[in-house]
């Protein structure tokens, strides 16, 4: 960690470095030389395609500039040119680790425009799948954190769990990754025969495996603690100021969860806790993730215990053409608050769709807290934010 004076000096240095880039022959007057390094876009720890322009003093980062857009596929523009139902498969591609929440947000927004009534069974199934989606995003997140710290094994245990959930999803939705399951007015199809039992069995198995494979292996490890405790530490105020949501906010102790405070769908009927931690560092984010997986298990059990009967699709007509206006769907994705703002002009394509992805906003944290850390600390901080390339670039 840099002292305050060093930090100020670093800020001054970064200004000079910008000049030095333009004119490499200029040397700074302190005789200090820093090393400019471009980390990414092709880098194993960058969660996809992200470029960090780093200025290093030894191994200490004095400046970090985030350059993104390497995976920008202009989904907002594409969404403006597709009919309302045909936008759903595009939302799937935003956060490809937690697709089901992405669909859910868009569908909620359109339903708000249509003022549609959703059958309770569809609502319950949506929440069920959403919680499975959270598990299959959180567990690999822990794996990625460990992978970036240099431990290769947990990621494979994590992907074992993800694959098993994907098997369930494949039986329900027909795809392993881009589900396209939640539809405007309900879900695509009811759960197939035997799937609730399979889900129950899987969840019970996961409860048993969670302790050895993800807690015993990681939590007490001295090297893990040394690498993560106090790294990426931020105060609650800073977190709120930066607009963080999801795990990075909750690990500072601020209790905010869209499911709790802006309830939607079936979550009004569920009993769960918002997991928070007081430390606000990488280790705390790991603990919050584990706690949230346990809460998700609890919620899935509640939903499966009393799954309402009935239809899974509301009758909204064949053609979806909402009235003029705007609708906002806000869900808690695995990475934070995900909101979709759909503006309609009365035609059968949206006039404007805006995706508020949590990754984009949370990534602002990088340029704020990375300066002062060592170069290898960038990786756990990336694990704390846990962004997804498709989501920050939209």
């Amino acid at each position, binding site marked *: 960690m840099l002292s*305050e004076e060093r930090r100020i000096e670093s800020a001054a240095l970064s200004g000079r470095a910008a000049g030095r880039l333009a004119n490499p022959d200029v040397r700074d007057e302190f005789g200090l030389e820093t090393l400019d390094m471009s980390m990414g876009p092709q880098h194993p720890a960058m969660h996809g395609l992200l470029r960090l322009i780093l200025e290093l003093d030894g191994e200490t980062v004095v400046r970090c500039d985030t350059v*993104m*857009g390497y995976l*920008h596929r*202009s989904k*907002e*523009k*594409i969404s403006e*040119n597709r009919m309302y139902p045909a936008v759903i498969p595009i939302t799937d591609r935003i956060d490809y680790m937690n697709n089901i929440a992405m669909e859910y947000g868009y569908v909620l927004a359109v339903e708000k425009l249509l003022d549609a009534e959703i059958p309770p069974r569809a609502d319950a199934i949506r929440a069920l799948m959403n919680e499975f989606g959270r598990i299959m995003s959180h567990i690999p997140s822990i794996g990625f954190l460990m992978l970036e710290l240099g431990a290769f094994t947990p990621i494979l245990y994590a992907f074992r769990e993800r694959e098993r959930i994907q098997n369930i999803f494949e039986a329900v939705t027909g795809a392993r990754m881009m589900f396209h399951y939640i539809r405007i007015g309900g879900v695509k199809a009811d759960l197939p025969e035997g799937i609730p039992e399979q889900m129950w069995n899987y969840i019970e198995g996961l409860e048993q495996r969670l302790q050895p494979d993800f807690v015993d292996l990681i939590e007490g490890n001295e090297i893990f603690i040394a690498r993560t405790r106090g790294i990426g530490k931020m*105060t*609650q*105020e800073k977190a*709120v*100021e*930066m*607009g*963080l*949501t999801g795990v990075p906010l909750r690990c500072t*102790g*601020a*209790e*905010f969860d869209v499911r709790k*405070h*802006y309830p939607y769908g079936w979550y009004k009927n569920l009993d769960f806790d918002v997991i928070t931690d007081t430390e606000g560092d990488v280790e705390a984010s790991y603990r919050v993730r584990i706690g949230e997986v346990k809460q998700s298990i609890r919620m899935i059990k509640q939903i499966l215990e009393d799954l309402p009967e009935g239809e899974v699709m509301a009758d909204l007509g064949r053609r979806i053409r909402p009235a003029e206006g*705007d609708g*906002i769907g*806000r869900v808690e994705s695995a990475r934070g*608050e995900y*909101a979709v*703002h759909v*503006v309609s002009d009365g035609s059968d394509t949206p*006039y*404007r769709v*805006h995706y*508020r992805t949590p990754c*984009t*906003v949370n*990534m*602002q944290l990088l340029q704020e807290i990375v300066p002062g850390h060592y170069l290898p600390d960038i990786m756990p901080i990336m694990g704390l934010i846990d962004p997804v390339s498709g989501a920050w*670039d*939209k």
Partner: protein
Amino acid sequence: MPPASQTDVGWIPKEVKKKLKEQKKAEQAAAEADVQKKRLTRRARRPEGYGLGWPLTLPEGDLQTRLKRYLEGFATGMGWRSPRSREPGTDRDRAEDLTGGADDRAERLGVLHLSFITVVDRVGSFELTYELLDLRGGQVRVKTKVEGEEPVIDSVTGIYPTANWHEREAYDMFGVAFKGHPDLRRLYMWQDHFDHHPLLKSFEISTKRTFENLR
């Protein structure tokens, strides 16, 4: 007690030593506090008794009543009789006063969180939607309209630092300029050799197959 530099004698009694030590400590603490103060200048400007304590306390109660009370206070503070019949000549009506006075707005209301900024290109004008949350179930949606081909609007980064990238994105996609933004660069599209703002309605996309000559 002489300053520490002048007590350069061979033998110092124990109590004096102790006192010197304490004095040094106090000086150090003062210096540290000074640094802290510098660091937290933004926070120090905030009025006491409102909003963010330490640690942060999230607001309680209904947003509606808070909002109503706040708006009343805002109107009287601005010298407005009612939103309709305000006098344009009052000295608090200048733009910088508005943004300056707005600094504590987020805290007084407890609307701490800027969720997103949506820009909608209504051909000829731009509609901006600011979605604000108090993180406790209340939400405020502020809509505004900017006319013109090259619109300019005040930045809200002073109140919500998170707006930094939201505004960069809006600038990138629509060309809406934000006055007072610390670092208004493109967020997604490449920085040079690209003069378009792709989400404008005038920017046409082609759905042509891209591999026509790629046998």
